[in-house]
């Protein structure tokens, strides 16, 4: 099954809490069920995104790290 990503955010180089705030702003423009991808370099974004998804009810579908870049795939609730 291919996953269509509705929006991708380049948050590399931004420090906490910018990645979360930018994602919160961007996800508002999506429809329920759509996917947003966020790429960040701040190691603190890993616990922050996990906690943010839990608190807001959005689903953290996938989380990977490669060459210092953390990728989060989130489905809007």
């Amino acid at each position, binding site marked *: 099954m291919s996953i269509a990503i509705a929006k991708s955010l380049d948050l590399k*180089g*931004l*420090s*906490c*809490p*910018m990645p*979360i*705030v930018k994602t*919160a*702003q961007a996800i*508002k423009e999506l429809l329920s069920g759509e996917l947003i991808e966020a790429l960040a370099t*701040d190691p*603190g974004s890993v616990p*922050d995104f996990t*906690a*943010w998804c839990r*608190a*807001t009810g959005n689903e953290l579908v996938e989380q990977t790290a490669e060459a210092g870049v953390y990728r989060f795939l989130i489905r809007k609730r």
Partner: protein
Amino acid sequence: MPARVVVLGGGVGGTLAANLISKTLGRDAKVTVVDPTGMHVYQPGFLYVALGQANGRWLARDERTLLRKDVELVVEPALRIHADAGTLQLERGGSLDWDYLVVATGARLVPEQVPGLVEGAQEFYSLEGAQRLREELRRFRGGRILVGIGGIPYKCPPAPVEFVLMLEQELRRRGIRDRSEVTLLSPLNRAFTIESASKLIQPIMDRRGIGLSTFFNVESIDANAGVVTSLEGEKADYDLLIVVPPHRGQHVIEDSDLGDPSGWLPTDRATLQVGKHERIFGIGDATNLPISKSGSTAHFEAPVVASRIASLVRGTAPRENYGGKVMCFLETGDRRATVLRFDYEHPPTPPQPSRAWHVAKWMFNRLYWETVPQGRIPERRPIERTEP
């Protein structure tokens, strides 16, 4: 012929850089500071003004009195930087030629970016705002106070936390604490961006009954209903709302096509060079660096820029780099404070709040005018490590 150095902005970073460049290079440089108001404002004092613990008088001084005699001061807004031509266009039609430019223009408050903020909320990020808030607090007889963040990045990240802690103490002092609620609306799932500081602060907030609403990024305010809504879709009622207004870079940066979409200067984290312009440097709040926008940052960046410009003028290789050093005091109320010292590589390990750090902060507030702008506090020591 002396090198022409223009410093745009007479805040802490610009004033210190101008004085250091002039002191280091003497007759080899002609240094000019350009500032729209000619008044130097000590912004950390706004917090105390809002809480009625200080008045505006000690927060502003004539910039001329803080500059070395051989530094020229031009009091006039700058309209445009012509990076390739090496000129600075001024509002009244004149222009200044420069060989080296230091951009230390600070941040601009844009409260109008949050619907309802101007009508519905107070702030302490400007002297006028802090004075208005002081009057609101004087009239306050009890109710629900919310303190939130209207946009990121914002200056002095510890300030909202300090404010709730100091406000809670003030309400106790006035005997209206039992009729009041104080809640911090945090953009994250903790009180403060830096985790080690949050671990220290949250138990203090808990003990003192200060509420914490997490993942609450202020999106809009309904002034008539007294309701604030977050990006995350939550709503909260208030009697008194205090919101840090969103910040942007200054118009001159945007009009010169030097900034990113928010008007911040793309700045090298080590050399502080702006973009590909080898003769333009950025200091303080004006940069896009992912560190605190604070006077302390500008204080530690200015000597690096001064040293690099001095090297370039003398024809030697610039060697000094900025390591991301920041040092902030954090008032926790009840005449106690802690301190956050960190850099790009080392997160802070703040000590338990104590009287000593509170006294240190007050000493710094008092001594600022005679020491920092003149470069009399040379802070070049590496960060002291204390294991948690």
